[in-house]
């Protein structure tokens, strides 16, 4: 897709730069002339929304760090001071806290889109794997950020999560001690989490660059899941994708704004407005909503599996639920990308999506009675989707016939205009 560059330096500055550092050409090829499939729908705007959210988090985070103090004696008070004393502090902190939730909403939609339209398939395997790495970094960043206000959920969340590592035989406890820098979560833990919470977003930024690079090498997938075959199948990134992204971003910001201004604490937890107390555990420890499906999987393993006790089994299942995504491009044996042409996969996709939502709900329930059994069933299905359903479907399913090209499919749908309304309109002026 990344064909010959159409950029020609015009002004003196551009010509000067062109011989020394052709950065304007890079920007032009990446964000202006880059050809995008003409049939992209609004699910393809979430990449831009995610870039926007990363920028929002870094900007608000940098200014919050000017007022926050990473010391267990004053951290809680400094956050309350941000809320009450710092000019616009309430807005910046609520943007940052709710921004994390918006970031995860967008990334989950982005991932389900990739699953529905088979965007992880050849030649986009590495693009997908880079995305999984970004997700892992996001989860680590969000977890450490949640510890910083030093409330009860911060403290006990950090305690429970770092205790995962004690499940590892032999080296588990030394690793946990190394991570928290003491015998319990304390000031040393808070300090290093602040340092890493500041570092990781820039690592995410780096992997995002690789992710976009990989995307621009293989080209975007599209709702039909077939390759672009000619220039007629594409439109230039600017203005078509740019403006569509901006419009979607405005709508997304309305959604963000509603939480920010009307329900700023809805996605949080009231216990985190109680200062951390190492001697009292809250009655019901729940992680942030975006971790709930993984938390449900962790708690679903209540039984020993051979030499693996239930604690280690739960930790393995939880990390496995993310690690398995790395292998998705090879577990899905079908050559057809888009679910539009895969009648059986389409059904199983929605069963899987409902499974993820149900796991999220079960993660918020207490671990007792029927909830445990339900979490076990959905956890089993989660893994079965990747390990049994997807490999078998490729062999059992008869896909519908694929259209010959994106243009043919678009024209057939719109009643067969000879020229696409947008892209090919300009040549007539010449």
């Amino acid at each position: 897709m990344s064909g010959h560059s159409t950029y020609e330096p015009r002004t003196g500055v551009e010509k000067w730069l062109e011989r020394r550092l052709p950065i304007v050409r890079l920007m032009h090829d990446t964000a202006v002339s880059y050809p995008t499939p003409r049939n992209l729908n609004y699910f393809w705007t979430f990449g831009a929304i995610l870039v926007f959210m990363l920028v929002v988090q870094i900007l608000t985070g940098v200014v919050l760090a000017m007022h926050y103090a990473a010391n267990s004696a004053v951290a809680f008070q400094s956050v309350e001071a941000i809320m009450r004393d710092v000019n616009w502090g309430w807005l910046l902190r609520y943007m940052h806290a709710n921004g994390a939730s918006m970031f995860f909403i967008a990334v989950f939609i982005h991932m389900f889109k990739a699953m529905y339209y088979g965007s992880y398939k050849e030649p986009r395997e590495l693009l997908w794997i880079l995305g999984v790495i970004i997700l892992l970094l996001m989860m680590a960043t969000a977890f450490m950020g949640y510890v910083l206000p030093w409330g009860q959920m911060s403290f006990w969340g950090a305690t429970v999560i770092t205790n995962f590592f004690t499940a590892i035989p032999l080296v588990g406890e030394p690793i946990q001690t190394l991570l928290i820098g003491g015998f319990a979560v304390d000031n040393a833990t808070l300090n290093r989490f602040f340092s890493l919470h500041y570092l990781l977003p820039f690592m995410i930024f780096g992997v995002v660059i690789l992710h976009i690079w990989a995307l621009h090498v293989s080209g975007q997938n599209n709702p039909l899941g077939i390759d672009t075959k000619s220039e007629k199948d594409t439109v230039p990134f600017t203005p078509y994708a740019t403006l569509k992204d901006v419009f979607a971003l405005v709508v997304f910001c309305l959604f963000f704004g509603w939480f920010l201004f009307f329900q700023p604490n809805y996605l949080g937890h009231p216990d985190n407005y109680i200062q951390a107390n190492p001697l009292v555990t809250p009655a019901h420890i729940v992680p942030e909503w975006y971790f709930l499906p993984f938390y449900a999987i962790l708690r679903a393993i209540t039984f020993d599996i051979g030499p693996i006790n239930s604690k280690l089994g739960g930790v393995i299942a939880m990390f496995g639920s993310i690690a398995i995504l790395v292998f998705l491009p090879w577990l899905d044996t079908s050559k057809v990308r888009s679910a539009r042409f895969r009648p059986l996969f389409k059904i199983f996709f929605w069963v899987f999506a409902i499974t993820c939502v149900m796991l999220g709900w079960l993660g918020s329930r207490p671990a007792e009675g029927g909830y445990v059994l339900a979490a076990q069933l959905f956890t089993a299905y989660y893994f079965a989707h990747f390990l049994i359903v997807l490999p078998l479907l490729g062999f059992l399913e008869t896909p519908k016939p694929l259209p010959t090209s994106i243009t043919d499919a678009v024209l057939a749908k719109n009643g067969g205009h000879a020229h696409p309304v947008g892209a090919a309109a300009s040549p007539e002026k010449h």
Partner: protein
Amino acid sequence: MANTASPADPTRRDFLYLTTGAMGVVGTAAALWPFIDQMNPDASTRALASIEVDIGAIEPGQSITVQWRGKPVFIRNRTPEEIEAAKSVPLAELRDPLARNDNAAADADASDANRATDGMENILVMVGVCTHLGCIPLGQQGEYGGWFCPCHGSHYDTAGRIRKGPAPENMHVPVYTFVNDTRLRIG
């Protein structure tokens, strides 16, 4: 190509390359170590090794919680009935067969005698951290009258042994000594 000199005989230069490379790896690892080890507990944390507690005021049936190495330690003055309940449990019924008592042998069984100190068996001292994922169990609660962990539903008996729920081990007993009848040193 077959006529070129055989690489089978290592030269003096090969040897120098290999040893230089090996020294480089060792040097890099040595330089890396401070960056990792700085994360381990610092001297001030390690210095908080032992504390002394006055246990004279704990009435039978009561328990107190003290902080040791940043963790809560439960000290419970058990009633005769609670001790009897703990003693009457057959060892085969226990989820974790080991005493987990740092004052006893590592393979000591989890009998009530091995969980407390002979002669002061009414005083039960334990690190008050659930062996599942590190929450603090609530005292005088649960199906066995010992402790109950609200996080993921682990039940401990009156000797602090895991009886039901996801926790894998009995609550750990730290190293402690009785200075006299009313003073206890932990650590």
